[in-house]
């Protein structure tokens, strides 16, 4: 079973398409990074997946059924919204008690242990906690539900580096303990490289890329060669798509997707880093199908 399956998923707000024709599978057990610039549709996608929004067209299932279809589904899916909402007048201890009361399955001990070990005071009202402490508390509460699928919307955005590390540490402890499938959205990828094994790139409401990070890094390469060679790049053996192209002087640098070994000796071949891969896909203006259009003039690449 897949944790999430989407087919032709689209969402329109008035005249604006926030999501267009997104189709993907997210297998169980993955820790997925949902990456894209602000306004790319990440929040919309997550809200549809938890059942807070209905799609304009297309379909989606979470854990094999319609999002938020019944109590059982609600208890199996955890969601932490962007602003880590907590009851401001309750203490951490009161929030834990509230969670224990409202959830059929509840592991308060895990939450308490982890929060104590990183020094989050449970006797203070949540309004008086720092941003990092509130994020930790919201995450611990979400994990205490023991969800099978946990969705986190920009959980790191407002955290300093130490708080990020601690937050991701708590999350990974949860994953190691309970095997929960995780999707976390972010506009940065650097923080996620250590924790995620799956990558989804969203830009302009369209899904640009979806797969395990290992596979994606395997099938993409950076090629460096003479600019003149660049004009015939569609003939490069092993290349199925040029994702990004930069020209400086006589040198052309390409980020390409491959379907086998590069067989053209005119190009030097390098591995691509996760960060460069993400930037290459975010840098392309239009959707991936444009690759089938006639070759753009060399030099049309995004300048660095």
């Amino acid at each position: 079973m897949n944790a999430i399956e989407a087919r032709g998923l689209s969402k329109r707000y008035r005249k604006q398409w926030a999501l267009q024709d997104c189709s993907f599978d997210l297998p169980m057990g993955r820790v997925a990074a949902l990456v894209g610039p602000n306004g790319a549709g990440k929040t919309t996608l997550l809200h549809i997946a938890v059942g807070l929004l209905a799609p304009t067209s297309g379909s989606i299932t979470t854990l094999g059924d319609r999002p938020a279809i019944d109590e059982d589904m609600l208890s199996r899916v955890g969601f932490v919204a962007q602003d880590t909402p907590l009851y401001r007048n309750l203490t951490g201890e009161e929030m834990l008690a509230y969670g224990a009361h409202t959830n059929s399955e509840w592991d308060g001990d895990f939450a308490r242990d982890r929060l104590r070990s990183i020094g989050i005071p449970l006797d203070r009202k949540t309004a008086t906690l720092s941003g990092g402490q509130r994020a930790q508390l919201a995450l611990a509460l979400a994990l205490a539900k023991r969800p099978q699928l946990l969705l986190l919307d920009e959980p790191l955005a407002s955290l300093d580096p130490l708080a990020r590390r601690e937050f991701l540490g708590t999350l990974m402890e949860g994953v190691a303990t309970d095997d929960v499938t995780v999707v976390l959205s972010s506009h940065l990828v650097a923080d996620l490289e250590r924790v995620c094994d799956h990558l989804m790139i969203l830009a302009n409401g369209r899904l640009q890329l979806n797969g395990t990070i290992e596979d994606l890094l395997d099938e993409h390469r950076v090629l460096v060669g003479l600019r003149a060679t660049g004009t015939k790049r569609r003939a490069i053996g092993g290349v199925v798509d040029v994702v990004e192209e930069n020209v400086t002087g006589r040198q052309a640098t390409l980020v390409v997707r491959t379907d086998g070994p590069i067989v053209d000796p005119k190009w030097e071949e390098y591995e691509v880093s996760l960060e460069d891969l993400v930037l290459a896909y975010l840098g392309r203006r239009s959707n991936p199908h444009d690759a089938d259009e006639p070759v753009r003039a060399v030099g049309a690449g995004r300048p660095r």
Partner: protein
Amino acid sequence: MIEFRLDQRSGVAPYLQLAQQVRHSIRLGYLRPGDQLPRVKDVVGSLAINPNTVLKAYRELEREGLVEGRPGVGTFVLRGLDGPSPRAHVALQRALERWLRTAFEAGLDAEAIRGMFETTLQDTREVAS
């Protein structure tokens, strides 16, 4: 028990770094046969890394016969690693220092030395295997 560290910029895959640190600790005696490796949950909690990274490192060490996973209990060191004796270690270190001094006197800089070392290491290994 040992504590793992990760160097993001080393270019070495994180799981290989973890496996290397275990081997290093065994060689230096921080870890002895029968000792338990840090639990996956604790490693991922402190380093904030994907559990699969730790599992992969432990599987690699298991394949080498260095450690053994006991389901539901943990992963334990099976045997030691024989490094050179302390005396041989010191002698090798001295010889290397002498060689380095000669190299500097001959006008090589650190980068050139590293390059020469890497290629020679590779060639020697190929010949040995």
